[in-house]
């Protein structure tokens, strides 16, 4: 397959097919509807499973069941729908099952709007579900990167027995880009799914998919085991990109759509003789804290730019550990800022420094 022109949501659906998806369970919500629409046609045609559930709550629990039964499973939704899925996500993480969740963000809170936003950073990285659990969260900035990430995320989910969340916004979901679906992905050793509830005819002993531990000692041990796994994920899977980082005057931190806008702003600032670099987190969890240790001494300050009101800012402050002035720029509600606005934020950096 050579280069094709694809819409983000459609590309996500096709990438899932390329990633070996066995089953999709979802519920319609704008702006991600093209994902289930595409998969409804192509999964059933391939003899695989597609179910439009009665709610997001049901959909994520179908994911839970099918993942427990050993299948490669995906669901997709948008902000309020992801909120409804948190219950099931916590169970899936607790039971250590693999699955892929695609979140196409829109503006909030509440019903909010349907235009692009990054207001679900906390939802993705801190989780709305109960308990000490983590998702592996990717925030690609192009459709091509979304495809490559999604194809690989089924393997990553299987490898760690952990849900993977792909976090994009409505713009990436709805825009068109020319893409290549055949870029090779990293090969990983995927262990047998010896936990799957396929019936005792198919494996020794009984398999139980469960997140229930009434004994506090056992539950603490389970949590410590999860933390050990999360540490392993931090060590192995943290991803970020450093852009223009030779002796920058300022460093922008931005992800997804915002990092694309920042790229243009950086070019515009360069023309004015202001040299600006960028840290682009690709995994939002684990957050690339180490990137902040590599900021050159020339840097006078860090600008955290988000299409939210200062959610990633927390991670920037934690990662910078007080070494620089940190300023903030954010637009919300479905407003996608222009590069000029970021240029302006750098030019008036001091006014934006977070106290």
């Amino acid at each position, binding site marked *: 397959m050579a280069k094709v022109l694809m819409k983000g949501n459609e590309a996500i659906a096709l990438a899932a097919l390329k990633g070996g998806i*066995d*089953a999709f*369970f979802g519920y319609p919500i704008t702006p991600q509807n093209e994902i289930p629409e595409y998969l409804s046609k192509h999964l059933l045609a391939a003899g695989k*499973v597609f*179910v439009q*559930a*009665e*709610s997001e*709550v*049901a*959909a994520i*629990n*179908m*994911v*839970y*069941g*099918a*993942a*427990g*039964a*050993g*299948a490669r*499973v995906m669901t997709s939704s948008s902000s309020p729908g992801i909120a409804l899925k948190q*219950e*099931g996500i916590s*169970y899936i993480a607790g*039971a250590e099952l693999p699955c892929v969740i695609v979140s196409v963000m829109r503006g909030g809170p509440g019903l909010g709007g349907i235009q692009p936003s990054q207001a679900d950073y906390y939802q993705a990285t801190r989780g709305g579900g109960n308990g000490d659990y983590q998702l592996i969260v990717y925030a690609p900035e192009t459709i091509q990167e979304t495809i490559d990430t999604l194809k690989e995320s089924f393997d990553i989910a299987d490898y760690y027995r952990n849900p993977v969340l792909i976090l994009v916004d409505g713009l990436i979901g709805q825009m068109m880009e020319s893409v290549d679906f055949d870029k090779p992905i990293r090969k990983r050793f995927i262990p047998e799914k010896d936990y799957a*509830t*396929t*019936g*005792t*005819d*198919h494996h020794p002993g*009984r*398999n*139980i*998919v*469960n*997140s*229930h531990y009434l004994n506090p000692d056992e539950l603490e041990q389970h949590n410590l085991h999860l933390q050990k796994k999360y540490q392993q994920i931090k060590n192995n899977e943290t991803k970020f990109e450093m852009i223009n980082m030779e002796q920058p005057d300022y460093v922008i931190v931005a992800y997804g759509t915002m990092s694309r806008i920042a790229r243009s702003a950086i070019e515009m600032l360069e023309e004015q003789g202001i040299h600006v670099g960028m840290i682009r987190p690709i995994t939002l969890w684990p957050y690339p804290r180490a990137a902040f240790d590599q900021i050159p001494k020339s840097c006078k300050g860090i600008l955290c730019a988000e299409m939210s009101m200062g959610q990633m800012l927390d991670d920037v402050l934690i990662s910078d550990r007080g070494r620089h002035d940190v300023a903030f720029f954010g637009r919300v509600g479905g407003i996608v800022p222009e590069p000029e606005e970021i240029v302006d934020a750098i030019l008036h950096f001091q006014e934006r420094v977070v106290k």
Partner: protein
Amino acid sequence: MEVKYRKSQGLTDKKLSYCPGCTHGIVHKLVAESLEELGVLGKSVGVASVGCSVFSYEFFNCDMQQAPHGRACAEATGIKRVLPNNVVFTYQGDGDLASIGIAETIHAANRGENITVIFINNAIYGMTGGQMAPTTLEGQRTTTSQDGRNHLIHGNPIKISEIFSQIEGAAYVERVSVYNPKQLMKAKKAIKKAFTYQVEKRGFTLIEVLSSCPVNWGMTPPDALKWIEEKMTPVFPMGVFKDSGEAHE
């Protein structure tokens, strides 16, 4: 001498976590015996719910998953869709199925998911301490209806079998009980028939079992069984509410 009755192979050796005389244990046996007699234990996957029966994943001698409160039928849908040749069942109480999980249950039925739902109706929330259930009877005292359930305040007991009889995708719906050996044998027949329908891929099957909760009802186990017969069956009449009898495929 030959063995006429012994513990089912469909149950593990684990001691049941139910109160003395609770009929959950009896229904567990009926499910286990049915799966054993049909020879499908090795391909069965059960879904435990939330409530007193949360630990049923430790008791049924087959693969099990434990579902969030009310979501058992969604989870079972996920399992069955990727393992269509396995036998998949849920075991749910009245809080789980008839209250928080009614949407998941109705829609699984409506899609004609080829699963079997065992629904335990004991008119009360056992696990959390005797609160009102959606199936609590008018006038019945619970910790959240202390002067007795009043339909003007609390609504009416919900009739699951009657509701599910109206659903296209449901192949078989019956309400049974286990308050004496005769009723128990009828219940066993119904449960086994439901699983047989599933093996024959006929669609969604639901067996509602009127059960006891001696501790929260404040009665001895034998008196609790009498209460099912005298008080519950007039509100929740037993019988077959739907039997499509037709092949589903």
